[in-house]
């Protein structure tokens, strides 16, 4: 049976490396399933489970809090995010760094906190869903 190489990495470490007969990932536009010899694909991931189906039929699942998925015919790479990301959150962080450069200010990061909290909530919800799914399959 044909297999495809799968790498799941995050900035703070390697999460998984191996061969798979099928990979499912939560792409931004909907869940995608990738079989060997898939066409090259580049897409963003949203928080959720990346499921790796091995050649022997067993399945492993990994939680990612978003990231990038790159597919080559022989290779799947998941670049998982570790940091909590949102566009407006980045924006706020940038202006904060700027402000710090001007003067060292603290206690004025409500923008960041709000944006961060929203994404954290999203990730937590996805994680909860992921965990209940795992529970169902093991019971």
């Amino acid at each position: 049976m044909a297999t495809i190489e799968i790498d799941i990495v995050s900035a703070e470490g390697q999460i998984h490396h191996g061969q798979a007969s099928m990979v499912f990932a939560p792409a931004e536009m909907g869940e995608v399933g990738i079989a060997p010899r898939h066409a090259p694909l580049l897409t963003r991931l949203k928080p959720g489970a990346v499921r790796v189906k091995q050649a022997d039929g067993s399945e492993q699942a990994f939680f990612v809090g978003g990231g990038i998925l790159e597919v080559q015919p022989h290779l799947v790479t998941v670049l998982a995010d570790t940091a909590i990301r949102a566009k407006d959150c980045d924006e706020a962080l940038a202006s904060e760094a700027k402000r710090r450069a001007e003067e060292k200010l603290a206690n004025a990061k409500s923008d960041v906190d709000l944006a961060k909290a929203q994404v954290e909530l999203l990730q937590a919800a996805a994680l909860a869903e992921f965990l209940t799914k795992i529970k169902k399959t093991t019971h």
Partner: protein
Amino acid sequence: MAGAKEIRSKIKSVKNTQKITRAMEKVAISKMRRAQVRMTEARPYAEKIRRTIAHLSQANTEVTHPFMADRPIKRVGVLVISTDRGLCGGLNTNLFRALTRSIREWREKGIDAEYAVIGNKGLSFFRRVGGKVVAQNSNLGDKPHLEQLLGSIKVLTDAYREGRIDRLYLASTQFVNTMTQRPGVRQVLPVEVDGGVGKLADNWDYLYEPSALELLDTVLQRYVESQVYQAVVENVASEQSARMVAMKAATDNAGKIINGLQLAYNKARQASITKELAEIVGGAAAV
């Protein structure tokens, strides 16, 4: 025996200093080990994203992202990564020397520069020599998180996107091994692809979801971030190993000073005993 007493208190103070430097050395050793582990953990991501970028450069894209396009240089952005604390040998000094050399080269060519600074030492360097600092970030601790760096990175990548700067450099210390750390100024943007992957099929392109430009933007932004994160983690490892070496030298030096002082103390003590004896003998002879 006034001389001997002074020497004794001197010995005591040097011993106390030695105790401190020895403790700092021990702390640096254990922190360095942890930093090295973190450094190796960050490597797979950097490798994989570089591979993705190498693939991307081979793809037949109809759009060219500004991060991959070379343009004439009028102004550069530099992200300077320094340590928060001193007592780590010549680590920061060497970095600033390398940076000053680059700045001089740019100035000769009439190129302006702006800086984002990570670490207190870098900030005080620019306070001293002057320079436009657009973003600043310090007190990251021994376990830096990507999140803490995003702000400073975005200031510079945004400047690059808007065309305010035409090149982005990273001035940091690379960790070679425990004894060697190499300071340097490396180019980050535009992205230089160093190959490393075999040629893929001819004339292909990715399926992009949602759009090519948006995805390239995300990938390249993550690429810059991973480069910076890697550099920051390496800087922590470099800092700790430089501190370890510096503190070891300080401890050894303190040992040498103590030996010298001990010798002087013994001599002074001996001399006073001899003097006393001579006085007694002289006194006895007189009687």
